[in-house]
């Protein structure tokens, strides 16, 4: 169990496709400044910066941690960059948890940032993403993320009986949650019919089943409670666990089941000394609508009866375990390096009762955050506890 790693504060910029001429350096500065303000700290209080950014090809900036330390008024701190595909932001948070828990650092600022939308054409981003899998095999065919997720989803559907209607329900609900989130990319008022009428991207996935490419930044600060200004009601980390699966979908026993995520979740429950039944709110990696259901199944929520629970409203905003009240990737958006940091931010603020979007009404004691890279290849799960 993690004994004393507290959420000091955090902030995020809006996630969207920037058309205002601002740069990722601007977003990073803003998120850092607002996180420091939220935590009641000064830049000089930070002794370690961990940057999450998926690809140098997005930023066109190698060694971004040192650059962003300089840009954000943190020159002199220890600075490093963590990368783990879609899980980069969450894995950076895990690195910060380890630094604080071990005493390697007192106050760590985690800064996730990615210009996933505005720097390159969508086709070029897609070509880069195809290298997120086994670049020597999958990547060389030019296969895109959506196609690989679609193949995994089909395997999931074949085994569980999930349908495109189930997927559409997730796509609609997460966008509805996003409407309460001023930082969300896609605050859409849509119906299942709209999802069904949107263009096919890779069957069974249609455009509205897919999360967007987004720009943005998010920052959080972690520290031991004694190293923070006095205030009541800090969320604390209870678990930070990660696990991998085979990179190639075809080498998995069941290509529709996220076994690496299940392993990460089981490790996290054990680390926190809780069970899935103790989780009261969750931010889950929904890069695609069906992937949310696959994730919920692997995480063991609703007694591992995710599909039936989904149909019963268990994961709705007024359900037993509200999922993705932020809107998730489908609604809030996905600037890759910032995604996991923003998920943690949302969970911590939910537990502290001061979330800027739709607040959970069930007064959760524990929140689960789930992020992955690849097709649930690199998996990160955290469990936070309410004050």
């Amino acid at each position: 169990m993690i004994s004393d790693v507290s959420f000091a504060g955090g902030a995020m910029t809006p996630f969207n496709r920037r058309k205002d001429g601002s740069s990722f350096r601007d977003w990073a500065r803003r998120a850092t400044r607002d996180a420091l303000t939220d935590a009641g700290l000064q830049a000089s209080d930070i002794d370690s910066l961990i940057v999450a950014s998926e690809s140098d090809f997005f930023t066109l900036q190698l060694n971004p941690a040192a650059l962003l330390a300089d840009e954000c008024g943190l020159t002199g701190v220890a600075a490093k960059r963590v990368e783990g595909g879609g899980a980069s932001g969450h894995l950076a948070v895990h690195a910060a948890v380890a630094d604080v828990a071990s005493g390697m650092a007192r106050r760590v600022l985690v800064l996730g940032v990615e210009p996933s939308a505005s720097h390159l054409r969508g086709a070029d981003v897609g070509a880069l993403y195809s290298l997120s899998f086994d670049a020597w095999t999958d990547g060389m065919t030019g296969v895109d993320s959506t196609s690989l997720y679609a193949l995994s989803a089909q395997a999931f559907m074949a085994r569980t009986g999930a349908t495109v209607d189930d997927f559409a329900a997730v796509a609609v609900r997460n966008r509805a949650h996003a409407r309460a989130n001023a930082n969300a990319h896609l605050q859409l008022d849509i119906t299942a019919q709209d999802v069904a009428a949107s263009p096919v991207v890779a069957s069974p996935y249609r455009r509205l089943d897919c999360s967007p490419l987004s720009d943005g930044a998010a920052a959080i600060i972690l520290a031991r409670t004694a190293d923070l200004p006095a205030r009541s009601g800090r969320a604390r980390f209870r678990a930070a666990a990660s696990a991998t699966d085979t990179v190639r979908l075809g080498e998995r026993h069941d290509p529709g089941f996220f076994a690496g995520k299940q392993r990460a979740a089981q490790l996290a429950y054990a680390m926190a000394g809780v069970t899935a039944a103790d989780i009261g709110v969750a931010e889950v990696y929904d890069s695609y609508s069906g992937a949310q259901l696959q994730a919920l199944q692997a995480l063991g929520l609703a007694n591992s009866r995710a599909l039936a629970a989904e149909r019963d409203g268990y994961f709705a905003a007024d359900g037993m375990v509200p999922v993705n009240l932020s809107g998730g990737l489908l609604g809030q958006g996905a600037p890759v390096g910032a995604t996991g940091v923003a998920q943690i931010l949302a969970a911590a603020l939910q537990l502290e009762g001061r979330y800027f979007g739709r607040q959970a009404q069930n007064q959760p004691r524990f929140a689960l955050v789930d992020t992955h890279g690849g097709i649930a290849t690199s998996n990160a799960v955290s469990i936070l506890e309410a004050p």
Partner: protein
Amino acid sequence: MKHHLGLDYTIPVGDLAPYFEALQAGNALASACGKCGHVAFPARAQCGACGATDLRWKPLTGRAQILFRTDAASSSYALVKFDGADSSSTVGLCNPEQKTSSGRLAVPIGDAAGLWLTLTDNKGEEDER
């Protein structure tokens, strides 16, 4: 600010060279584990099932059955099982207009090293590429 970045990579493939050389000739060369017998295609340099490094090369027929298939506007991909392999493989479909469920390994287009499948009719005959 505008910037163009053009990069040409030359990537040595190391221990997997026989697999990639066979692929360029349109042949399926799997790796077979000397310890547990697991046959992997695409080939691996270390067994994915037991971790052993005692591998030998095993030619496959190149014929495959489709497990799952996804179609987009400009491309189609499938998860397939090559005859003789224990693992399945992600392939690009050369002739997606064909709706049959089996096919044969194709020579990669250009210098690309990925797996491509030409779908065949029920008699096992290939359409024109």
